[in-house]
């Protein structure tokens, strides 16, 4: 699975970190960072939820 994060769209809502803290973290600068850009398939539902919950559509998940 490939996770893409467009940081310039990020508003630091933290929705992604709430849903998939193994993959996303909002850093000190208030913007999301990818902790793991290629997580295993067991993370798919969490990453999908993060993708859909991002208020600025900054996350995309490709399986």
């Amino acid at each position, binding site marked *: 699975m490939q996770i893409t994060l467009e940081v310039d769209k990020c*508003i*630091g*809502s*933290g*929705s992604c*970190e*709430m849903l998939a*803290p193994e993959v996303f973290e*909002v*850093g*000190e*600068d*208030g*913007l999301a960072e990818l902790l793991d850009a290629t997580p295993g398939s067991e993370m798919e539902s969490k990453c*999908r*939820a993060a993708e*859909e*919950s991002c*208020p600025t*559509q900054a996350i995309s998940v490709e399986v």
Partner: protein
Amino acid sequence: MKEIVVVGASLAGLRICQNLRRANFEGNLTLVGAEKHLPYDRPPLSKTMLSSEQDPGELTLVSDSELAELNLNLILGSPATRLDTAARAVTVGDEKIFYDGLIIATGARARKLLKTDDMDGIHTLRTIEDSLAIRSALHSSSSVVIVGAGFIGSEVAAAARHHGCEVSIIEAGGAPLMRGLGLEVGSACGQLHESHGVNLRVGVQVQDFYGSQTVEEVQLSDGSRIAADLVVVGVGATPNTEWLNDSGLTIDDGVVCDASLNAGIPGVYAAGDVARVPNQWMGGGPLRTEHWTTATEHAALAAKNLLQPADSTPYDSVPFVWSDQYEDRIQIAGDTGGFDEVSFLIGSGDEEAFVVGYRKGEHLAGVMALNSMRPFVQYRRLLMARGQWSQALDLAQEMDG
């Protein structure tokens, strides 16, 4: 289940369709929308759309290729006008669309003030057309009056200052966002406006509008008048339920649902701004929530529970909403109404960044943050874990240090 109809083609409606297809629903899927546009994102309508020349096409929430994959019977520009739950049919134009499963996501519309339809220059903000009309008016206006210091009013005020307009905000309550955040924190939000040169008038109401064809002056309840060539009214929204009046569903400030989003009849669910649903995290009775995040969460849950009613999951989420005003970002999570104590966890009300905590009993009930994304996320996670107030204080010390 062979036929599912989703009524309402905004964020919730689209997300419902995406979730149904991802859950391998292969039957006919109809999406009905009153607006002519493909599902689009509304938060930018009062933010980047007004402060820049953003192309509204950028707000579309679904690409052409994804839309093709969803394989929808897509009916846009035509509202549903009636629901017959006995015949299991939705009327759209002259057509009746029959369903095995129905999800209602018709959203809400901006509340208007009396008489405002009779005069030019008075706007509400809910749609792409509204946003474009206000943007165009901002280019030619010098005096802007905003009615209501909620999120929409506050964001439009910021955009109007960005365009160099004189701006007044008329707020009936004692401070901006007071109902949601309390007087002290609302007043801190009011300072954002005043520091940007906005004339913030609290505790007064609009009594009348004057002008020949176009608005020229706004009369307030304290007798004063303010010149205005553009008025934007942001006084809340009304759920779009009129088409359901004779459906037999319980309508009371929205479609009243149980915690699974079921509207009282098997196979009929509601989601998003139109749904009044108990939120397990909040406790208590059904609530109507007009947050972006709520729409996406409802959509995922309604799709799942419609397909697997025997395995229904209740709605259980920490409410979250954000607002961009000037260069500042306000974020709110949890329950910030009906608190026992409100106090600044990080910073103070006259600083450019702070975090406020709302205590209910021994628990942290809610958080409001200004320009504090990283701490906010920490507190949002603490709310999700139903954290204690003492943990909220500890977290503040950790982050201060």
